């Protein structure tokens, strides 16, 4: 009977694993193979020269790689921390405001999350427009600048702009995760602390935050993974520019593939990104897996 049940399980798992195999596992292995060959303008690796790890050597010795690596890390750290602060604030707000406003507030918070990344990029490109962009004119009206800044042409501002546009959506996503955690904080604990005279800040620091710590960790890990893989917002907003200032690992690897048509080097680039993300994602999966209880 037990033997039979594991056979059935195998049959039920097979179709999903075939799909994952064809469109995820196989391509990853194939990319790893590409990365060992000298491939330009073609992916026919069987006819190409085997170069061992030379592509990795080239990539790791290039200034562009370290530039995109530096930007990706800076972007990830800045975006994830900003998102977390804003997301936590918004999530707390949905539990703090008077009851009739809670549903409305939640609906407002979820909206940015649902906007596809590349459409979001187009929207922000218009908001950042140097002639009639809303943000430039707001900056002038608030006395932050004499004239609308060149958000996407100035290297420093371009970095900030990409981060801001990404955080707009990311804060929404973080808030959604944190709302889930906050919903599970027992109200009676907070009420009891209030009766004992604990102020709001104390209740937050001593009760709410420690209780939702697991959710916070999962949120930070998940958002870090997302930020490290970022592609569409960069591709749509700056295209990596000015120059290669805002190129991330993914957007630069994409240029290797489809602009420079160097599949060998591009694959080495992609594999390095993959290894970086996979190391972290193992941590993430270890965190969330034990909590599912199965028969």
């Amino acid at each position, binding site marked *: 009977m037990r033997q039979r049940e594991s056979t059935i399980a195998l049959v039920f798992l097979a179709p*999903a694993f075939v799909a*994952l195999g064809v469109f*995820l596992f196989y391509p990853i292995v194939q990319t790893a193979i590409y990365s060992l060959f000298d491939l330009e303008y073609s992916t026919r690796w069987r006819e190409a020269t085997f170069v061992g790890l030379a592509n990795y050597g080239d990539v790791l010795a290039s200034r562009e790689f370290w530039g995109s690596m530096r930007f990706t890390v800076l972007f990830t750290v800045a975006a994830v921390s900003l998102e977390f602060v804003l997301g936590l604030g918004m999530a707390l707000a949905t539990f703090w405001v008077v009851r009739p406003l809670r549903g409305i507030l939640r609906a407002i918070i979820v909206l940015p999350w*649902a906007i596809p990344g590349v*459409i979001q990029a187009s929207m922000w490109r218009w908001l950042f427009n140097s002639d009639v962009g809303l943000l430039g004119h707001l900056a002038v009206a608030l006395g932050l600048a004499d004239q609308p800044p060149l958000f996407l042409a100035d290297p420093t501002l371009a970095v900030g702009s990409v981060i801001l546009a990404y955080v707009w959506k990311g804060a929404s996503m973080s808030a959604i995760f944190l709302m889930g955690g906050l919903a599970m904080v027992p109200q009676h604990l907070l009420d009891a602390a209030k009766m004992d005279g604990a102020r709001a800040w104390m209740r937050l620091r001593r009760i709410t935050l420690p209780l939702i710590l697991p959710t916070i960790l999962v949120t930070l890990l998940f958002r870090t993974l997302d930020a490290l*893989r970022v592609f569409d917002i960069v591709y749509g907003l700056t295209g990596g520019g000015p120059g290669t200032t805002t190129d991330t690992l993914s957007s630069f690897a994409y240029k290797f593939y489809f602009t420079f048509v160097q599949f060998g080097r591009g694959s080495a680039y*992609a594999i390095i990104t*993959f290894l970086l993300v996979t190391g972290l994602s193992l941590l993430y*999966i270890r965190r969330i897996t034990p909590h599912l209880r199965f028969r």
Partner: protein
Amino acid sequence: MRRSLHTLASLVVTAVVALFCLLPLYWVLVTSLKRPGTEFRLPLRAWPAPVSWESYLTVLGPDFRIQHAILNSLLVSAAVTAGALFLAGLAAYAIARLRFRYKVQSLTLIQMAGMAPAIVVIAPTFVLIRSLGLLSSLPGLILPNIAYSIPLSTWLLAAYFANLPFDLEDAAKTDGWPPFQVFLRVILPLAAPGLFSAGVLVFLGSWGEFMLALTISMGLPEAQTVPVAILGFSQAFQLQWAWVSAGIVLSLLPVIVLVLLFQKTVIQGLTAGAVRY
């Protein structure tokens, strides 16, 4: 007194959050209602006067046909949702309800696959889709997207299936029902709310998928989904932002309606896997 102070503060907080979350969307709406050709006029106004629907007619007209991209996206997302829920449902049933070795390992492997960055699969996938003759076709988008959606939906469905009662399933097994019948006629009906919630998330996820859509569509309109079409508009018409904005508003309508209708489901679905301890 304290009460009305709380109400007042709540209104202020809600307004600030709304400003942050909705301002970009509002500005695109305003731009879409400007008369084309007046986008670059100063000073900026909070509401266009007069309101013009011309851009909407333009993007729905023969030169743009945004409705074509929206239809493509609807078809792709619907097919991906159906396919992914079926495959993930089978896998999740095995993981949540059947006894077998390497269960945790199977689930971990599926989840790892879901974390792989798109860039590491895109080149071989492009070659594969080309060799199948599916470049710039909807099936060329649907098949890989089904695979991409399996990890999240397996996760959500396994969590949901695990909490279903066992008595109906055991009764059906005692009656000698074959496993697939048990899955199809006992588990799936019981899990309808879970399937729905996973379905909404898969639908929205594949609606926004970009790297594959960009690569497979090859710049041709046949298989352009909404994200690719909008990016194309905004690059081709750098000065006609009223048109681009109208395109954005129309293509966001289905998503916004979906999210506002099923806001609770979305939040519960997204947090189900992440925060249950």
